[in-house]
């Protein structure tokens, strides 16, 4: 029972990060119908920058700030320089271009930082606090929950309460009509990619200290889990992405805890296959998401 509680909290903490990362995927998918396969590697770039800044200044938080800013900038640059050129091409092209970015970025990171894992310390203790002798959660888990919660609330406010959020949603749903209403759709797309990369960078910052450390491929598995989370939620639905993230986090935590940690990638695969075959539109899609 103690173990179950611990695995549940651990799963929710990982799930919160997957949720954030999945949310970033959904942000871009809703606006452009493109799954940003480069999102993991963009987050890794931000994490490396944070690593360098933290190393130079000695402050974790300056590094964290650098990751946020670099996320915004990277997202905007990638959209403006690369993705915009395949916007009207067949959807396969965007996928391939994003994968090209993955190779390019991993190569560049390897050239700059080398291919060994680098220790990436957590800002809070990762030793579990015990309640009545039962290990419950770590301070770092609390930090994760808090950060993701703040992020989600900020996004919710942005999209439902502000004029910019309204414009972004309009541009995503109906670009032509939005232009007639004076919305600069191109700018909204850039902003959407910037925001998504920012959210991805935060997710990367949160999850890398819990893993093997910093490496050009550090986010590959996270991407896979979060993509599954987004698909569980329907790729289209922000709330679905959050729920999907928590579900994936829990499943992986239980599988890793009760079976074998090496089987978690296969568990992701199994979960994805089951969801895709049972409800291809995801558990939260209002309409059929897929068009033949």
């Amino acid at each position, binding site marked *: 029972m103690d173990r179950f509680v611990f695995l549940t909290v651990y799963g929710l903490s990982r799930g919160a990060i997957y949720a954030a990362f999945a949310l970033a995927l959904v942000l871009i998918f809703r606006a452009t119908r493109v799954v940003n396969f480069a999102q993991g590697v963009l987050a890794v770039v931000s994490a490396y920058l944070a690593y360098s800044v933290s190393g130079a200044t000695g402050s974790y938080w300056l590094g964290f700030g650098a990751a946020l800013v670099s996320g915004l900038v990277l997202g905007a640059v990638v959209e403006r320089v690369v993705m915009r050129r395949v916007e009207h091409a067949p959807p396969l092209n965007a996928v391939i271009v994003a994968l090209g970015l993955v190779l390019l970025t991993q190569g560049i990171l390897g050239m700059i930082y080398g291919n060994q894992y680098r220790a990436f310390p957590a800002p809070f203790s990762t030793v579990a606090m015990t309640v009545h002798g039962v290990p419950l959660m770590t301070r770092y888990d609390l930090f994760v929950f808090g950060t993701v919660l703040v992020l989600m609330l900020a996004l919710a406010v942005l999209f439902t309460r502000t004029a910019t959020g309204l414009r972004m949603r309009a541009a995503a749903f109906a670009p*032509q*009509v939005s*232009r*007639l*209403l004076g919305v600069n759709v191109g700018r909204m797309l850039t902003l959407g990619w910037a925001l998504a990369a920012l959210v991805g960078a935060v997710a990367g910052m949160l999850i890398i200290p819990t893993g093997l450390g910093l490496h050009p491929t550090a986010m590959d598995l996270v991407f896979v889990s979060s993509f599954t989370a987004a698909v569980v939620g329907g790729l289209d639905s922000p709330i679905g992405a959050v729920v999907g993230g928590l579900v994936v986090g829990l499943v992986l935590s239980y599988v890793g805890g009760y079976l074998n940690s090496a089987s978690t990638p296969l568990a992701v695969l199994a979960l994805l296959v089951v969801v895709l075959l049972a409800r291809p539109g995801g558990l939260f899609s209002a309409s059929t998401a897929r068009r033949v």
Partner: protein
Amino acid sequence: MTALLRVEGLTAGYGGVPVLHDVDLAVPEGTICAVLGANGAGKTTLLRTLSGMVRPDRGRILLDGSDLRGLPVEQLIRRGLAHVPEGRGVIDELTVEENLWLGGLFRADRRALRGPLREAYELFPALYARRRHAGHQLSGGERQMLALARALVAKPRLMLLDEPSLGLAPLVVAQIMALLRRLRDDGGLTVLLVEQNVRSALSVADSAVVMAQGRVVAADSAGALVGDDALRHAYLGF
């Protein structure tokens, strides 16, 4: 009266194939001009060219004397041109209120738009009752009202209306035409109205142009066109 909208020698089309040939048009301020013609006559292409969605090959589009050609679509509303597209362009995923807000966001922030929104609701009480509903939950008539109301929140000088009567019950069409008349008479709104429904269009229009195969084949006052039997039979089918 000076013409608010003046179109001179406009030629435009898709992928190098011209659809509009040498179209001339003038709409005086505070009047309603109907664009009539059969399916495929180029009416919708004309509107799409005016609002920048189709690039003209030749000709000029003057709004109050300044040329609109080459302006990005999203800039046109700032010049006072509102386009209510065919199919109405209500954004289904947004609520009625969000749609209305979006209509005015280019010129004012949310707080400043409370007044214009209240006016829109006074004009269309049905929309107020459904202001929290998503666009896809509205009926056809409500969608048309929302599209019109949203365009009015923008406080445009010229409204381009594409087939507002399409798929609506005659009673609703009559209401919409009456509303256009009122907006012109009380608010000085200028409207370029594309319609298949010739009778209702001519019932509100001051002037009209008849298009066929991408050309303007007749332009006159609405009354004169109604009286021109030959023209009516040849192009308007009644």
